[in-house]
């Protein structure tokens, strides 16, 4: 997905670069397999209580500044200053010192933030990948270091809530500083909020704009699972062009090759 600036011949030239870049980045942030399951999602899918999720691949940690720098190096249309206003907001990569220079406040191993959903989608597409769906993300995030579904574990919940409770002004730490969960994924909690592909499908889709979306509780199973509820509220407050100091992402792939 590129803005309509580059014609076909240029595209052809650029086609090779991602393959090379993608290969290098694959080593830095490999895709880890998350086995499929019949999953009791916090968001009911119609009348269904469980949703079947197919096995998929998810990157081990959130995309870092270093990884994103490689992307904007090869994709000038996504650099700060050139990225279109319709697909970003005024906060796009403002932590960086320059359009191609993350600088001291955004080290290579910190997760990239201040990126809009469109930018995240473009990045993942360039890696022959995609953003994970909410259900996939929820499945992967339900795990603790030892269990696949730790959502009923009060200690797990408290740990997630503890991060929510700390103020956000501090500098972000590098990725993979803590323990991986049972799938081998790092930083599913405690570092940044992460974009998902269908973030605009989470809250009750109501024709009446006057009905406030803030609760999410109207349509949610497991109301006691506040850790998940708050993530839904957070994603529900965002628009696709928004950027946030604590909003990053990681990419996913469908098992079996293609995105």
């Amino acid at each position, binding site marked *: 997905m590129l803005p309509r600036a580059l014609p076909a011949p240029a595209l052809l030239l650029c086609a090779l670069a991602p393959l090379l870049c993608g290969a290098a980045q694959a080593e830095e942030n490999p895709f880890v397999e998350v086995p499929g399951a019949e999953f009791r999602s916090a968001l009911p899918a119609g009348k*269904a209580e469980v949703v079947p999720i197919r096995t998929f691949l998810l990157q081990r940690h959130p995309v870092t500044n270093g990884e994103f720098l490689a992307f904007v190096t090869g994709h000038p249309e996504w650099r700060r200053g050139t990225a279109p206003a319709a697909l970003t907001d005024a906060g796009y990569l403002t932590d960086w010192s320059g359009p191609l220079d993350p600088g001291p406040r955004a080290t290579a191993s910190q997760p990239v933030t201040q990126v809009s959903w469109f930018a995240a989608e473009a990045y993942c597409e360039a890696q022959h990948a995609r953003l994970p769906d909410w259900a996939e993300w929820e499945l992967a995030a339900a795990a603790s270091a030892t269990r696949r579904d730790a959502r009923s574990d009060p200690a797990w919940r408290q740990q997630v809530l503890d991060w929510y409770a700390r103020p956000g002004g501090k500098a972000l730490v590098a990725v993979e500083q803590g323990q991986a969960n049972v799938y081998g994924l790092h930083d599913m909690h405690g570092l940044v909020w992460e974009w998902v592909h269908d973030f605009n499908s989470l809250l009750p889709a109501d024709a009446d704009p006057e009905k406030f979306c803030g609760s999410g509780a109207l349509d949610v199973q497991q109301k006691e699972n506040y850790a998940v509820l708050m993530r839904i509220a957070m994603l529900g407050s965002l628009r696709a062009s928004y950027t946030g100091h604590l909003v990053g992402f990681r990419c996913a792939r469908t098992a079996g090759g293609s995105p």
Partner: protein
Amino acid sequence: MTRLRLAVASFAFLLTWLVGASADIPPDSVYQLHAQLTTQTAASAGLDLHRGHPTLITMFYGSCPAACPMLITAMQVYESQLDESAQARLRVLLVSFDAARDTPRELDRLAKLHHADVTRWTFASAADPDARRIAALLGISYRHLPSGEFEHSLLITLLDSDGRLIASTAKLVGDQEFQAKLRAATELPEGRRERPR
């Protein structure tokens, strides 16, 4: 023409096209999104197929039992409040997020069912991820349920001839402010209108 001249001309043309293309679409226009649509005539088109005209744009799906027919009728009602010359300037684009079922034939059937003027109304569908991206851009939420139904919000958006957002409404009936903006966008010739913010 000699080969050299041809090469130079082609290069110049390419360069102009490059520069021209990037300078054309304003940075805050929704047409900055490159998305693939399939229309009721089975043609491939981008989101900007009605560029050059003020456009009403929305999203729906064909098997929608009640809300979407109401949505289409609502758009026709807003359109009908305009005088003839204004209507002639207006374009309407309805994008379905159900590419699987809303094939060109199905879209064509819907267009006929609603007696749409197909010279100005386009029924199209988009596949994921394009459908998701268009919805995100317009601020429309939708969920695909296992039953095949979609849960979605209703929003009619008015774009200027360059794809910049002028106004939106979720009111199917009686949004006077929206109607006024629609009138303003379609009544006067392009050059004489103030740039919308």
